[in-house]
């Protein structure tokens, strides 16, 4: 498996192209399905409808109905079926129309996919990818707007990825499909249409799971984020720069295993850190980062770790309340200034 760093490629590879996250994900799946006959895609509306959010556009035409399978609305059933198919030697990609519906199937993801390698004394293994949009879309209310990052990252036996850019989405999805373990791959509906000029066309190019990326260097404060919040963190960094604060923005990319080394390295330099995530504060990714900093970087901290999170409430529908419930650039700027003791 190639695990070359795209940071290097960025300098050497002129073949990087611009694609939307949606297209990059589709290409990633298509390349892996071409490479490996055992890879197949299954989920609601993935085939004839080309995906509820058009992520699987064209895959049915390209690979046929044996390998691009429309399921009934039976998440618990088809997630379990995917686990069985993986036990049986296939490499399923199971799409949840959104991760909200993975709650119907969470028992199979955790009890069956994540734990069986351990319970079988290493015999079994479950190479499967559960993917789909995660987190809040826009104005779809409490049952359709939830971030599952910390839910899945909590569980040993799973890998959890949540990319931001199109290039990362493709290279990490390819890595997830090739990985011999169950991987939860958290996408974001609002990012699907966003384009990035960092997509490698090299079919063998994959990114290592478990490596964060420093998206912006800075010496004054570390901002960690994943998925759509990386964009907000970068915006906040621009604003902070205007006020003379140089923020370092770390795109976590993988949540389990978390790239603790990269975070520590940054904090050793900046001595201040703010964690940003869309999910609820309690027992969130930010709570974990705060604990890890206590354990590994306590002596380097000049201020308490701060968390910027979604409000601790089910997502409201009303436009004004939804805005208040989600982390905004303003709150990131404010938190960064607070740990810098600036007002």
């Amino acid at each position, binding site marked *: 498996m190639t695990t070359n760093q795209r940071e290097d490629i960025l300098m050497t590879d002129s073949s990087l192209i611009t694609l939307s996250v949606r297209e990059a994900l589709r290409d990633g799946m298509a390349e892996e399905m071409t490479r490996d006959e055992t890879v197949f895609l299954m989920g*609601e*509306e993935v085939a*004839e*409808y080309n995906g*509820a959010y058009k992520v699987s556009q064209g895959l049915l035409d390209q690979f046929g109905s044996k390998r691009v399978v*429309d399921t*009934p*609305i*039976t998440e*618990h*059933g088809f997630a379990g079926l995917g686990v069985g198919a993986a036990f049986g030697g296939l490499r399923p990609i199971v799409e949840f129309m959104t991760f*909200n*519906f993975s*709650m*119907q199937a969470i028992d199979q993801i955790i009890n069956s996919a994540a734990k069986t390698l351990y319970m079988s004394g290493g015999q079994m293994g479950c190479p499967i990818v559960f993917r789909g949009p995660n987190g809040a*879309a*826009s*104005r*779809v*209310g*409490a*049952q*359709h707007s939830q971030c599952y990052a910390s839910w899945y990252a909590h569980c040993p036996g799973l890998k959890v990825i949540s990319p931001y850019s199109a290039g990362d989405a493709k290279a990490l999805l390819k890595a997830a499909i090739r990985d011999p373990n169950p991987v939860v791959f958290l996408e974001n509906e609002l990012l699907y249409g966003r384009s990035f000029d960092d997509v490698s066309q090299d079919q063998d190019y994959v990114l290592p799971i478990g490596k964060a990326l420093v998206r912006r260097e800075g010496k004054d404060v570390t901002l960690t984020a994943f998925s759509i919040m990386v964009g907000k963190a970068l915006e906040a960094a621009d604003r902070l720069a205007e006020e003379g604060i140089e923020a370092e923005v770390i795109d976590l990319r993988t949540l389990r295993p978390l790239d603790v080394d990269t975070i520590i390295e940054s904090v050793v330099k900046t001595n201040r850190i703010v964690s940003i995530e869309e999910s609820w*504060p309690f027992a969130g990714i930010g709570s974990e980062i705060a604990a890890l900093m206590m354990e590994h970087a306590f002596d380097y901290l000049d201020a308490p770790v701060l968390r910027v999170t979604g*409000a*601790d*409430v*089910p997502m*409201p*529908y*009303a*436009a*004004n*309340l939804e805005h*208040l*419930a989600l982390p905004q650039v303003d709150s990131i700027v404010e938190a960064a200034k607070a740990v810098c003791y600036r007002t």
Partner: protein
Amino acid sequence: MPKSLTEKEALKAYRDMLLIRRFEERASQLYGMGLIAGFCHLYIGQEAVVVGIQSVLKPQDTVITAYRDHGHMLACDMDPKGVMAELTGRSGGYSRGKGGSMHMFSREKNFFGGHGIVGAQVPIGTGLAFAHKYKEDKGVCIASMGDGASNQGQVYESYNMAALWKLPVVYVIENNHYGMGTSVERSSAGPNYYGRGQGWGIPGEKADGMILGEVREAAQRATDHARSGKGPYILEFDTYRYRGHSMSDPAKYRSKEEVEDVKIHHDPIDHFKTYMIETLKIKEDQIKAIDDEVKETVLEAVEFSKTSPEPDPSELYTDILKEKVPLQ
């Protein structure tokens, strides 16, 4: 057509169906204007199903459904103003703007939602029936689901419990032939949803959901059965949704001809109107008066939904628990 339908009942049924149709048309417009956002699933085409069922219910009966719920709420006699204002996310909405199109409730009208997770309402409806039996209030729960939802495992777990404990629940399958872009032929092995309770001895029947009288008769048999203590009943209604699954669905998976055919030959409101005029000899001007009243009612709802203020920011942290949750 049932002889039991009096002129007054007929006029009410017509009015209720028309209210749903006009309400949904306006909701569609408001969506286009950006006043409604997110998911919005219209009930146009399926009006006879909820109105027919509601016409045989008793005050203590309970109703629960999924996200295609505006019709159920209006049929339950919930205030169109409160429903529309919830669609626009305003404080005058049934959930004070916090629920949206898919999540509205009314304890007063015994409407228990408004659920966004396909199939989840079915065991909950079974639980409402459990409560009816427990309290001996002679109530029945109507638990509605789509053809797509009918494949969720929890539906069958519910069937078993309801049959085992003889719970007063009527499972209603609104078979509109599609679950999002997937036709029933592609989602379901075996075409008969009404027969899926057989293994548990649950009686079931299928009726034409575009004909109010047929819905009403079937609903009467089903609720009589459940109310008399004999346990659950399954009703499948053959119906059709005219619009896309939600506002963002161009519905390319079916032909224009298919949709037009239903609209022209099977429209539930047209059909019932003809029946009122030809069989019940109801005069055109009586019908016209209803048309006018409905139009007015919907316009008032629209106006209210535009002028009702957004919820106060403090509402963000209310209703999380029964007690006030302290701000962190």
